[in-house]
């Protein structure tokens, strides 16, 4: 971690007071700011030091909460809601469309490192199911065509998430 990167991380850690209470927000913000979408070991150590916690405690939190990741992620992770309102609004077809379009099975990353997709529980957008969530953005009322153009647009930068 170079000095600029470290300073940026310190800024995120202390932006809301740097209390242990803020640890989830801090870790999520750090993860969103990271290139590979996960909490690496060095970052976890820095959080532990700044919040006066042990690294073990930080990792306990990273591994417990579903939003936090311990391993590098694809650039765009498409999370398909599979809770019952979405499940019975054809969320499985979204998975099939993604498999067809991307050529990799669920849970695997495309060779260029750009895309991966998997199921997640309810994101609170049940009125527009089936939905895909990428970072903070929810894409709803999906069908095969919309998924295909979403992937194209993410690839060529026309849709920014």
């Amino acid at each position, binding site marked *: 971690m170079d000095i600029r990167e470290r300073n940026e991380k310190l800024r995120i850690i202390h932006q809301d007071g740097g209390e242990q*209470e803020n640890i989830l927000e801090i870790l999520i913000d750090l993860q969103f700011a990271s290139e590979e979408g996960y909490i690496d070991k060095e970052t976890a150590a820095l959080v532990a030091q700044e919040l006066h916690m042990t690294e073990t405690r930080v990792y306990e939190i990273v591994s417990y909460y579903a939003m936090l990741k311990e391993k590098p992620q694809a650039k765009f992770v498409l999370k398909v809601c599979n809770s*019952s309102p979405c499940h*019975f609004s054809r969320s499985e077809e979204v998975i099939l469309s993604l498999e067809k379009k991307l050529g990799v099975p669920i849970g695997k990353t495309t060779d260029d490192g750009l895309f991966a997709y998997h199921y997640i529980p309810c994101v609170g957008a049940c009125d527009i199911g089936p939905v895909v969530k990428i970072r903070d953005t929810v894409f709803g009322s999906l069908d095969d065509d919309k998924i295909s153009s979403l992937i194209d647009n993410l690839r060529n930068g026309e849709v920014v998430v």
Partner: protein
Amino acid sequence: MALKEPVLLKRVEKMTDPTSVEEFTKYGGFDALKKAVIMDKEAILDELDTAHLRGRGGAAYPLGRKWRHLYGSQNTPKYIVCNADEGEPGTFKDKMLLEKDPLSVIEGMVIAGYVFGSNDGYIYIRGEYRHIQAVFHQAVRNARAAGYLGKNIMGIEGFDYDLHIISGGGAYVCGENSALLNSVEGKTGRPRVKPPHLADVGLYLKPTLVNNVESFACVSAVINMGGEAFLNLGTKDGGGTKLICLSGHIKNPGVYEVELGMPLDEILYSEEYGGGTSTGRPIKFIHFGGQSGPIGTSEQIKDRLYDYGDFWYNKLAIGSGAIVVMDTSVNAIDYMTSVMEFFVHESCGKCTPCRLGTTRLLELFKKFQRHGGKQGDIEKLEKMLEHITNLSACGLGQSVSVSARSALAGYRDEFEACIN
């Protein structure tokens, strides 16, 4: 009869900037707070009792009773916590308040701060609502700048109260109040063993009030219109209006505000609300109040009133306000398998009956799905449901059986068809 005037959503879509204090006050915002600070605290509690306001998170516990419990606690400091970890599938109504009228939630929380002489309020917003957290941060900053949060609120000497915004991290169990408090403290969000009650031993082991987003918004409504008028919007089993979330196979999905006691048929079929099914097939069943709520068969939901009392009497529940409609194409076993997959994913693993019970239940449902059931499997299912309910430590495990039992009661023939 449709609601004449919205109570909870009266400002939604009217304000161009939902975080603006100026716009909020233009549409009656902070009127309740201004009224509350010149009221006797006991009188506020009386109004809440009269209103018969039930908690809107799902458990429907009378809010006035909860407030009195905390009010009676001698220990200090007291903490006010808003549970905005909306995670029950089929529920997305708190999201609307948090995003479109955040100051109404803040107002309710400040009134609580005043009643309990608290200096610190916390709002725990689910991690998936990260964009809404940003809106809420702005609303808090604006309220602070306008003197509705911080030191000497509204110029009242010693009325010091501020809000802390805490993010969730994607754990359904953190919607359970004690797990939520652990998460606020920067720990893993696993539930605590209760008793003690959170009003006695809560956040940082201090007396704590935990209420849902919509409940706090209702508090302002009660103060504004008076307990009696609020009660009259609903029924004797629960006053006020309720935000409902229509989803699944329904033509007009979304969030609506209805008076408690409205005919369920009107909610489901009138064009103003649900508009009937989206698929042309009839309704087979409805899952009420989230995954932890009961399933109501088409027979059971006929001629019902959307009312706490009428629902409970007929083995249904209002819960969070989720109304997930399923048409006749859906098999009860398939539906329950989907529900159980959710619980397996979200069980926190702290207690064995829930950790293993949800997994074993899912295996059994999948066996039924393959039509691989054996004689005695339905009885085994019933036993397992009894065990997980009676032995689990928190509300998550204890309510796993609710939907399964109601599915079994309503569609036993579909289960029996899976037995060889």
